[in-house]
C-alpha cells in the first residue's frame, strides 16, 4: 500500500473531481458534499503519511518511481522527505477547510467551483511530491489553470485583470524555469551519460557548470519561485490576485501556492545549484529584507482588507526567503516550519476576511468598525490568528520566525536586524487591521451582524488548534525536516540516487545537540 500511497493521494482529488463532474449542477449541496468527502479522505491519507513518516532520515520516503516517457528521460517519480511531508499535510488540510468555508461564501456555480478546487489540490500535492523535473513542472503549471479559473470566474469586480495578471506573471517565471530545466537536463545528459529529468539523479553529483551558466540557470528557477512566493519586486500580481480572488481561494493562494515557491527554492535550487545559491544568496537576502520592510510598510498604508493582508503576506514571505538564503540550519529549519505556519495563519486570516466580506460585502477597512461588540467570537478568533501572524510566542508563527531570525543573525546579522524591525511593522499593520475592524464604536450599519456560525467554527477550529499546537510543540514538525535540511546544507551529500533509504544512517536525534537537555527529564540540578 505504501508503494502507491502518494499516487493515491494525488489521485483522490482528481477522482473526486471526476465524481463531481457527474453531479447535476442543480444539486450544489451534493457536489459540495462529494468534493468535501474527497478532500477529507485525501487529508486522512496525507495525515497518515505524515504520521508514518520517519524522522531522522534525509532521503525520500514513500517513494514511487516508474517510467513515464522513457524515451525522453522523464520519469514518474514521487516521494516525500522532510521538506515536503508537512507541506502536503498542510495542503490536504487547507483545501477541505477552504471548501468548507466556501459553503457559506460561494453560491454561484458551486459544482464547477468544487471541481476546480479539487483539481487545484491535485496540482498542489503533485508539486510537493514530484521528484522529476518535468513531472514537477507539470504539476506546477497544473496548479495555475484551476487557480486562474477560480480567480477569473468567482472573483471580485476586477477579477479578469487580476486573474490574467496572476497567470502571466507566474507563466513568465515558469517558462524561464522550463528553459532552465531543459538546460539542466541537457547538461545532466552530458555529465551523467543518460538523459534524465530525475532530480535525485541530477543532484547527486556536480554537473560541472561554469559559474555564469549556473547563475543563469539558478536565475531561471529563482525567478519562477520568486514570482510565486513572491519576492520583491516581483510581487505586484499579488495584491490584485489576493484581493480579487474569492477569499477562500486566497486562502489557498496565500496559504499554499506561495509555499510552492519557497519549497521550490529549497527543493531544486539548493541541490542543483549549490554554488550559485551561495554566490547569489546575499542578493536574495537583501531582497528578502526589502520585501519584509516594504511589504510591511505598504500593508500599513492599505485601506483594503485583503490588500493589507496581501502585502503582509509579502512581508512574511520575506522572512521565509531570508531564512532560506541565510543557509543556516536554524534559519532553513525555521523557513521550512514557517511555510507551514504561514499557510495556517494566513490561511486563517483569509478565511476570516472571507467571513467578514461575506457578511457585509465590504472590502475596505473603513467600512468596518467596532465589530468586537457585535461579533465577539469572530474578534477573538481573529485576534488569535493575528497573534500567530505577529509571531507571538506560544503561537506557531513565533517558532518559525524565531528560528529564521536566530539563524539568519548568525550569518547575516545586519539583515536579521533589519528583518526584526519588520516584526514591529507587522505589529503596526496587523493591529491597525484589528483596530479598524473590531475596535472603536460599532458602526450602526453593522449592528446585528451575525457572529461565527457553527460551521465556521468547525472550519477555523483545526487552524486554531494548529496555531497553538505548533506554537507549543513544534518538535514533530521540526524533527521531520531536520535530517533533510541538514543534508541539504551539507554540499553534495544529499541525494543518493535510487537508494535514499539505504545509505544514510540518520544522525541520532537530540544526541549531538549542544547544551540540549533530553526530553522529559524532569529536574536537573546544576
Amino acid at each position, binding site marked *: 500500500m505504501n508503494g502507491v500511497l502518494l499516487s493515491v493521494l494525488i489521485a483522490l482529488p482528481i477522482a473526486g473531481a471526476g465524481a463531481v463532474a457527474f453531479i447535476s449542477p442543480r444539486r450544489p449541496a451534493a457536489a459540495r458534499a462529494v468534493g468535501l468527502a474527497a478532500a477529507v479522505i485525501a487529508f486522512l491519507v496525507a495525515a497518515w503519511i505524515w504520521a508514518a513518516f520517519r524522522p531522522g532520515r534525509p532521503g525520500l520516503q514513500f517513494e514511487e518511481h516508474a517510467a513515464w516517457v522513457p524515451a*525522453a528521460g522523464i520519469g514518474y517519480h514521487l516521494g516525500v522527505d522532510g521538506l515536503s511531508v508537512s507541506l502536503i499535510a498542510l495542503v490536504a488540510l487547507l483545501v477541505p477547510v477552504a471548501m468548507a468555508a466556501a459553503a457559506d461564501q460561494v453560491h454561484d456555480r458551486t459544482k464547477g467551483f468544487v471541481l476546480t478546487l479539487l483539481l487545484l489540490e491535485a496540482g498542489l500535492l503533485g508539486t510537493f511530491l514530484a521528484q522529476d523535473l518535468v513531472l514537477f513542472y507539470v504539476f506546477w503549471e497544473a496548479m495555475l489553470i484551476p487557480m486562474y479559473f477560480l480567480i477569473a470566474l468567482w472573483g471580485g469586480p476586477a477579477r479578469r485583470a487580476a486573474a490574467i495578471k496572476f497567470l502571466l506573471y507566474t507563466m513568465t517565471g515558469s517558462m524561464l524555469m522550463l528553459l532552465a530545466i*531543459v538546460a539542466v537536463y541537457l547538461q545532466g545528459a552530458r555529465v551523467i551519460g543518460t538523459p534524465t529529468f530525475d532530480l535525485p539523479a541530477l543532484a547527486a553529483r556536480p554537473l560541472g557548470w561554469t559559474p555564469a551558466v549556473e547563475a543563469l540557470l539558478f536565475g531561471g528557477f529563482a525567478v519562477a519561485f520568486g514570482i510565486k512566493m513572491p519576492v520583491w519586486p516581483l510581487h505586484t500580481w499579488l495584491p490584485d490576485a489576493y484581493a480579487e480572488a474569492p477569499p477562500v481561494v486566497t486562502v489557498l493562494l496565500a496559504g499554499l501556492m506561495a509555499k510552492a515557491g519557497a519549497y521550490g527554492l529549497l527543493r531544486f535550487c539548493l541541490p542543483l545549484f549549490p554554488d550559485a545559491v551561495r554566490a547569489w544568496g546575499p542578493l536574495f537576502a537583501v531582497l528578502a529584507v526589502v520585501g519584509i520592510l516594504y511589504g510591511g510598510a505598504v500593508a500599513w498604508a492599505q485601506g483594503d482588507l485583503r490588500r493589507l493582508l496581501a502585502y503582509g503576506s509579502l512581508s512574511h514571505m520575506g522572512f521565509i526567503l531570508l531564512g532560506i538564503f541565510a543557509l543556516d540550519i536554524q534559519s532553513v529549519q525555521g523557513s521550512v516550519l514557517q511555510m507551514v505556519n504561514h499557510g495556517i495563519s494566513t490561511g486563517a486570516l483569509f478565511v476570516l476576511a472571507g467571513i467578514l466580506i461575506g457578511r457585509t460585502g465590504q472590502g475596505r477597512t473603513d467600512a468596518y468598525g467596532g465589530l468586537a461588540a457585535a461579533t465577539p467570537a469572530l474578534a477573538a478568533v481573529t485576534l488569535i490568528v493575528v497573534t500567530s501572524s505577529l509571531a507571538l510566542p506560544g503561537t506557531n508563527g513565533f517558532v518559525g520566525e524565531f528560528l529564521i531570525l536566530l539563524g539568519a543573525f548568525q550569518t547575516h546579522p545586519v539583515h536579521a536586524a533589519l528583518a526584526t524591525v519588520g516584526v514591529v511593522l507587522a505589529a503596526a499593520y496587523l493591529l491597525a487591521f484589528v483596530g479598524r475592524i473590531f475596535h472603536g464604536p460599532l458602526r450602526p450599519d453593522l449592528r446585528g451582524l451575525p457572529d461565527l456560525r457553527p460551521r465556521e467554527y468547525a472550519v477555523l477550529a483545526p487552524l486554531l488548534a494548529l496555531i497553538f499546537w505548533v506554537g507549543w510543540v513544534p518538535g514533530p514538525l521540526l524533527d521531520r525536516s531536520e535530517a533533510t535540511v541538514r543534508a541539504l546544507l551539507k554540499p553534495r551529500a544529499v541525494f543518493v540516487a535510487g537508494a535514499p533509504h539505504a545509505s544514510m544512517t540518520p544522525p541520532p536525534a537530540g544526541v549531538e545537540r549542544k547544551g540540549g537537555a533530553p526530553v522529559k527529564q524532569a529536574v536537573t540540578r546544576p
Partner: protein
Amino acid sequence: MTWNDLAAAAPETILVVTACVVLLQDAWATGAAPEAERRGSAPAWLSLAGVCAAAIAAAPAAGEVAAFGGMYVRDGITRLADLIALGTAAVGVLLADAYVRRMRLPAGEYYALLLLSTTGAMLMAASRSLIVLFLGLEILSLPLYVLAAIARRSTRSQEAGLKYLLLGAFATAFFVYGVALVYGAAGTLDLRVLAGQPPSPLLGGGLALLTVGLGFEAALVPFHGWAPDVYEGAPLPAVAFMSVVAKVGAFGGLIRVFPQGLPHAAAAWAPMLQGLAIATMVLGNLAALPQTNLKRLLAYSGVAHAGYLLIGVAAGGPAGTGAVLFYLAVYAAMNLGAFGVLLLLDRRGAEADRLEDIAGLWGRAPWAAWTLAICFVSLAGFPPTGGFIAKLYLFRAALGAGQTTVALVGVLTSVVSVFYYMRVAYVAFSGEAPADVAVRPSPLAGAALTLATAGVLIYGIIPARLTAAVQQAAALLK
C-alpha cells in the same frame, strides 16, 4: 513503376481513388435530400472509409522504403506525417459533415478536395525530390484555394479564396524560382544528391526562395499575410482542416529540405530559420492579442505555432525533427478541437465566430466548453496537455542545439499567448450565452471533438508512445 512503388505510395493512392469514388458517387446521387440525414452523408462516410484505409496502409512501421526512383520515401517521418495528415483529414471530414449540409456546400467536391489536399501534404512529407515537393505543394494548396472559396454565397469566402489563390500563386512563383536556383547550383533536383553539395551563393539564394514558398504555406512571418484573412473568410470546417494540413505539408517539406537535406550546411540555414521563427512567434502572438474574432485569433495563433514549429526545424537533427513531428501531432489535435467547438455554434444560420458568441458556453454545453478549454490550454502550452510536452521537446531541441535566443523568445512569447488563449477559455466559462447563438451538436462532430480532445490529453499525459515513435522516426537524421 513497379508494384513496390505503388505499394509504398499506397496511402496516397487510396486517397486519390477515394476522392474519385466520392466524386462519382456524388455525381450519381444528385437529387437526394441532403439535409435530413443525421447519420452523415454518403460522401462523408466514403471519405472517412478511405482515410481509414489509407491510415491502415500508412500505419505499419517499415523502416525506410524508397520508391519511384528514390523521389518518394516511406520512412518514419513519412509515416508520422501521413498519420497526422490522415487524422486531420478524418477529423476534418467528421467536422465538415453537418456544416456542409447545413450550408449546402457541394459535398462531393468538398470531400474530394479535402482528400486530395491531404494527399498533397503527404507527398510533401514523403518527397526526396524537389519536383515531388513542388507538386505536393500544389496538390496541397490548390484544393485549399478552392475550399476557401467554396462557400460561394459568401462574399467573404470569395475574398478569402481570391487572396489565398493570388498570394499562393505569387509565393509559388518564388518557390519554383528557388527550385530553379537550387537546380542551377546543384545540377540536381534530388534532395539526396543535394546533401553532398557545398553551399554556394546560388544554392543559398535558391534555398531562400524555397523557404518563401514553404514559409507561405506554413504561414511564417512575413509570408503570413493571407492567413488571418483567409481563416476569417473561409468556411469553418475548411479552415480547421487547412490550418493543420498546410502545416503538416509545409513542415514535412521543410524537414526534408533542411535538417534532412542539408545537415552539413546547418550553420548556414539555421540562423535564417531562427530569425524567421523569432519574427513569426513575436508577430503572431502580438497580433493575436487584440483579436476578437475567433477564427482570426486562431489564425494568428496558427502563425505563432508555425514559429514554434520552426524552432524545431532550425534546431535540426533528430531532436529538432522529432520535436517538430510531435508538435505537429499535438497541433493537429488541439487546433482541430478548437475549431471544432466553434463549428458547433450557429448564429442564425451563419458561423458564430466572435468571441462573445461563445460566452456562457459552459452553462449550455459544458462538454463543449471543457473541450474548448482543454484545447486552448494546450495551445497555450500548459500541462497536462500535449501542448506542453510538445513545447518541452522543442525547447529541448533548441537548447540542445545551442540556440538559446530562439528558445528564450519562444518561452516569452508563449507567455504572451497565454493572454489571448486564456481569455477565450474565460469567456466560454463566464457570462450569459447570446440569444441568437445556438449550439448544434452532431454525432459526427462530437466524435471528432472527442478524438481531438483525447489526442490532446493523451499526448500530454501518456506521451511515451508518440515520443518513442517520433524519436525512432527522427533517428534517421543522425
